[in-house]
């Protein structure tokens, strides 16, 4: 059954879980996410020991290994602050799957406590910070791709678009089959390369057909996939993590 999430008032501090993809490939997006939070007068704590949420092992069937990784992350968030994750898939893993992985285990409570405090970045900006963004950028047509985990695991189809709509010079375009997967799916893109390629081609074609100049997404897996295909085709559409896009235009 679907549950309604109740949002807390804006906290003094938050934890930031940067995700491994951002750490290695897109650190700029992580920095911009931190900037967006700090501008809301929130102190951002970055636990040093953070590595990966464990999702890649989990979805590949290596559950025991994923549990070990998850157990390590549980220890990073001792104080009761919200935990901000700039990715729907890592956020979904931590909010939805951690409690299930530790069900009946000694860490059950810790897993639940972490899960309850997980917020995807755009969700937190909209529902907890109630941000108001001022747009300093030029007129632009933008397409948003909400990741499947953000949309379906976390129920966040609207928070990204809601932020983009605050940008007065941005036109958020409607793309065909917006809710369809871009074809990333972690190891799926390798194990079933051809199907994954067909999916990303269709996704990019839909974005181009909507005459978008820019593509933003809140997940680096999707970004690597969609922008990777645009770049491969030397297409005009430029892809970016939503944190960078919002920060760049509103700072």
């Amino acid at each position, binding site marked *: *059954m679907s549950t309604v999430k109740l949002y807390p008032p804006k906290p003094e501090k938050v934890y930031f879980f*940067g995700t491994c993809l*951002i*750490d*290695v*490939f*897109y*650190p*700029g997006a*992580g*920095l911009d996410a*931190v900037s967006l939070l700090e501008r809301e007068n929130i102190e951002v704590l*970055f636990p*040093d020991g*953070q*590595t*990966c949420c*464990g999702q890649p*092992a*989990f*979805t*590949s*069937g*290596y*559950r025991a*290994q994923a549990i*070990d*990784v998850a*157990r*390590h992350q549980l220890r990073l968030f001792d104080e009761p602050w919200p935990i901000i994750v700039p990715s729907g898939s890592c956020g979904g893993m931590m909010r939805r799957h951690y409690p299930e992985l530790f069900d009946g285990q000694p860490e059950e409570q810790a897993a639940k406590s972490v899960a309850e405090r997980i917020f995807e970045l755009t969700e937190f900006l909209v529902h907890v910070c109630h941000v108001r963004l001022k747009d300093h950028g030029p007129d632009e047509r933008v397409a948003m791709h909400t990741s499947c985990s953000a*949309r*379906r*695991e976390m129920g966040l189809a609207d928070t990204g678009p809601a932020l983009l709509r605050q940008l007065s010079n941005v036109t958020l375009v409607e793309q065909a089959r917006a*809710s*369809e*997967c871009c*074809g990333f*799916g*972690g190891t*799926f*893109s*390798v*194990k*079933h*390369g*051809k*199907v*994954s*390629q*067909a*999916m*990303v081609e*269709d996704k990019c074609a839909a974005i181009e057909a909507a005459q978008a100049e820019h593509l933003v997404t809140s997940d680096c897996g999707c970004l*690597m*996939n969609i922008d*990777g*295909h645009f*770049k*491969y*085709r030397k297409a005009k559409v430029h892809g970016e993590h939503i944190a960078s896009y919002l920060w760049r235009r509103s700072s």
Partner: protein
Amino acid sequence: MSVKTFTPAAFHHQSAQALSNPQLRHNFRGAMDGLMAKRLGSFDSWDIEALRDLGQGIRQKALRHLPDLLEQLEASCQRNGITVHWAESADDAGRVITELCKARGAQSVIKGKSMVSEEVELNARLAEAGIEALESDLGEYIVQMADETPSHIIMPAIHKNTADISTLMHQRTGTRETNDAEELTHAARAQLRDRFQTADVGISGVNFAVAETGTLCLVENEGNGRLTTTVPPVHIAITGIEKVVAEFKDVPPLYALLTRSAIGQNVTTYFNMISGPWRGQEVDGPEEVHLVLVDNGRSRMYQDEEYAETLQCIRCGACMNHCPVYTRVGGHTYGTTYPGPIGKILMPHLLGLNTTKNLPTASSLCGACGEVCPVRIPIPKLLVRLRNEAVGEGKGNIEGAGSARRPMEAMGWKLFSWLARHPRCWRIGVRVVQACRSAVPKRVAPWTDNRVRPTPAATSLKQQLAQRRRS
């Protein structure tokens, strides 16, 4: 190559072929887009989530009491004059039905749509015994004529467009070539009509079997189901043991969910409730009615609390209509009776993971299937569980567990897990990757077949944050 020779083990090859077939992709894309839109429209004035909760509850309740309900169903059916047969395997099902046909000296059988009969390869088994079975559902009729298997559980011939069907019917039955679907339908109906009259036995599926009343419910649009179950002197219904529901009042919500989820219909043209053979005063009806309840691996799934959820399925097909993989590769590519998401979570139990291990991985875990399933089967969760079994890390009782295990891959995940628990070493790893960023090869197949390679940044987020905080 005939689709009949497709196998789940060859999914990769078959999917590559399907993807490079523009006609196939166009047919599926168009049909699935239409079905998705119609589904959404049909739930317009309903609280779809509340209805799904109800559907899930009804199916879960039935499964919780499955052994008792099956006994009750048998007793109720017998009271109604329906003979109940139990078939543990596909072989058993074939044998029971062949014997029933032989006992009546049957030569020809007319069939309504039944996926369970496909599952147990009934037509081939009957043919071995010299009995000819003719499919009367239009889609099935076409598929049979083409010597193919269904590519969708609700619309068996959805992979064919009108022109394909016209050519096929012209070649096989001599009908005039036309682009008018209506005309083709009429021609097929005329061809079938006689066969209902002359068939010795009618075989149908069952959508819901009501334990309380011993009623077999059959949902259909063409009227062929009604003819199959009333005109021939013998009616044999075949279904899986999971199709039972407790009470009659359980049927309307499931029916409402089924027709909307399947094809966006509020009601079907026909809803048959079969409650026994002809009783003398009635206008028509068969002299004998039999119900064949097929297990074929289901009771083993039932032993496992999670896998048992697969048995909630009401075979609406919505999961395939919404699946980004199915809509691109079509149903035959899976090489299994049930394609798409439901096939991926069901077939490993029916065939074992040895041959089906490529199915649970053929998903990006996007969750579109789970989002639309009218009885809330957690399909993505079950896919992950099956992957877990396939790589030999699970503890379930499933045939072929561990058959997808690759020692190097397992080592890789163990190393990953160790590193992720040892942040210092992890950081060294990140630094090494970033220091060697220019050494990432230009081509990393299959990723770079149509994307640029991902290039690590020069320094990590952790380093950049530390730097910013120092300055």
